[in-house]
């Protein structure tokens, strides 16, 4: 690994400015009562000391994205003969996501296995993924929230996997470590100084944060436990009773990657778009006949938890489709706690 670098807090704007000159830079900023990723502009004050309300998911996987445009036409000789042209662009804008928590970037590792599959690699995703660099900020002990559980899913507050650069807050500034080559290139900037002297302090910050999280329960049994509970209607009723079936958990989840595809016509032309969809919505699986394989919120919550802690790990070498950021808990209007559900399922399996 490359050498540790250091940047003083007051130099940060310089670095951001120089990054922004080359690409889109998304930083967490306060908007209303929330923190969201917005393009960096001089004068803007990024929020680094708490995790953003919405993760930087949209940087690679926009809430709504055009798959292609179509243009209908008519044969000039015979207007009864239609013509159809499809115009697609998978181009993505070079982007630096700056200041997300590591878990927010790590979510894309879960995306990658689905979107960069062998049979049908997703060109839109791949282009955006390649065009995006993640400079994340390791959590300090004070940033660890009651809802954090990254350590449950094999990660931690300073887990750089998924990041390209990992920053760590230290006195007066931040240490910066390149995680990938893409990241190393970013660190070639005059605003950054050598950080070897700060390395120990950074390590201590990381350790302290990890310390706050404490022991993680063993959820290795969750894939089997959730499957075992599949037909236990009472169990899922109890888990989902308070759920109101909104999409806050999925839309704010750094690993939720489901989408829908819709056409929007406008006269003779139009767009086919893909946009975020939520498995918690009734319409997600509603079939044209009116049949719905997941008609109740119990079915849907079962699928959400099952997907993350059972089906996905089964298909992907045990990797849990959750980065433990806790947004689904924190932002849930009724505080549905996915940790509790997984633990209940594991406990149920144990009998």
């Amino acid at each position, binding site marked *: 690994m490359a050498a540790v670098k250091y940047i003083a807090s007051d130099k940060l704007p310089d670095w951001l400015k120089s990054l922004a000159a080359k690409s889109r830079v998304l930083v967490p900023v306060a908007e209303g009562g929330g923190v*969201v990723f917005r393009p960096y502009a001089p004068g803007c004050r990024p929020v680094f*000391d708490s995790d953003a*309300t919405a993760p930087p998911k949209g940087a690679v996987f926009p809430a709504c994205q055009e798959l292609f445009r179509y243009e209908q036409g008519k044969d000039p000789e015979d207007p009864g003969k239609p013509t159809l042209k499809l115009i697609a662009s998978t181009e993505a804008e070079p982007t630096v996501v700056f200041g997300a928590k590591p878990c927010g970037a790590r979510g894309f590792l879960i995306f990658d296995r689905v979107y960069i599959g062998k049979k049908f690699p997703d060109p839109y995703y791949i282009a955006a993924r390649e065009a995006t660099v993640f400079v994340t900020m390791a959590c300090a002990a004070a940033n660890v*929230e009651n*809802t954090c559980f990254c350590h449950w899913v094999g990660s931690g507050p300073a887990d750089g996997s998924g990041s390209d650069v990992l920053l760590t807050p230290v006195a007066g500034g931040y240490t910066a470590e390149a995680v990938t080559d893409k990241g190393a290139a970013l660190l070639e900037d005059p605003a950054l100084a050598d950080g070897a002297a700060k390395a120990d302090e950074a390590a201590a910050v990381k350790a302290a944060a990890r310390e706050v999280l404490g022991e993680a329960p063993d959820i290795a049994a969750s894939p089997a436990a959730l499957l075992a509970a599949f037909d236990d209607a009472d169990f899922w009723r109890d888990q989902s009773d308070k759920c109101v079936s909104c*999409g*806050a958990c999925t839309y704010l989840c750094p690993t939720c990657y489901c989408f829908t595809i819709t056409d929007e016509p406008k006269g003779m032309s139009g767009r086919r778009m893909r946009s975020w969809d939520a498995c918690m919505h009734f*319409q997600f699986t509603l079939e044209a006949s009116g049949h719905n394989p997941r008609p109740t919120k119990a079915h849907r919550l079962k699928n959400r938890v099952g997907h993350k802690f059972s089906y996905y790990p089964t298909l992907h070498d045990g990797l849990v489709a959750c980065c433990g950021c806790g947004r689904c808990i924190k932002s849930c209007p*009724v505080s549905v706690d996915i940790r509790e559900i997984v633990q209940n399922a594991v406990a149920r399996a144990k009998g």
Partner: protein
Amino acid sequence: MSRLEELKTRIKEALPGLECVIGWQKGYDPLHNTPLFMRTDADVDKLEWGPLNVHNPAVYLPTFTGKKVGVVVKGCDSRSVVELLQENLINRDNVVIFGMPCTGVIDLSKVKARLAGAGVSAGTVTAVTDDGKTVSVTAGGQTTAMPLAEVRADKCGRCQFPNAVLADAYVGDPIAPAAPAAAADADLAALDAMSVPERMAFWRYHMERCIRCYACRNACPMCVCRDHCIAQSREPHWLTQDDTATEKLMFQVVHALHLAGRCTECGECQRACPMDIPVLALKKHLNRTIRDLFDYQAGVDPQAIPPLLQFKLEEDNIKERSW
């Protein structure tokens, strides 16, 4: 404490005849309570009462079609129950209402802001106590005392219904309502103070961060279409999936206008919003309009017909323009 115990006793008595009783219990951290579905006596023992019971449990009632359920309500929640009854969405015979006098609930956004002001994250709360006047929140090793009057929800400050408007079992003596608020809520007052173009900018700015999760809708006890909401249908096709402030605002317009004359102003839409978008102001404004035009407020009389589902041959307060 004894009042809560008495309530628990009443619930336990009724429980055998009920699918469940909906109330609140402690949540994942001391700052958060969470809805509780009581099916056993042990569940009832988890019941909480206090300023952290921010949720409106009436939202769950229509999902129990054909089953008899109990619900514990604050005064404001009971208005939603009344409105649901009024609209034939639940059956009076199938709901048992438990009530207690309510002195207000906190607004988590206000608490969060307070804590942020004190330099600590609301995500690190380790203890919360309340003595009826002050809420003390411990986070990041320091305790911040917040007068309830300052961090309670706007609706509580001018609450005219601290007691359930309709209850089958009411524990404790009804308390007097707060003095009617002279001025509008701060959010509405702020909007009132803006010019019309400024308001457009206001909504454009705030709607930009909407993630279209529909928590506002799903937490709303009066949004009874829910699974069939026109926001997500193509037949009819009111909204596109475009990630634009325009589409997002249009949904808020749909929500607000569908609630016109029905909204009990419980504030769940805004409380549920993970992005903290001030969507309640739209409904407050409409409620004011409904009050001015029809001298009506929702969720008070189970026999009333919502004003937009009826009419008068001569309207008292509608002055049509002449040309």
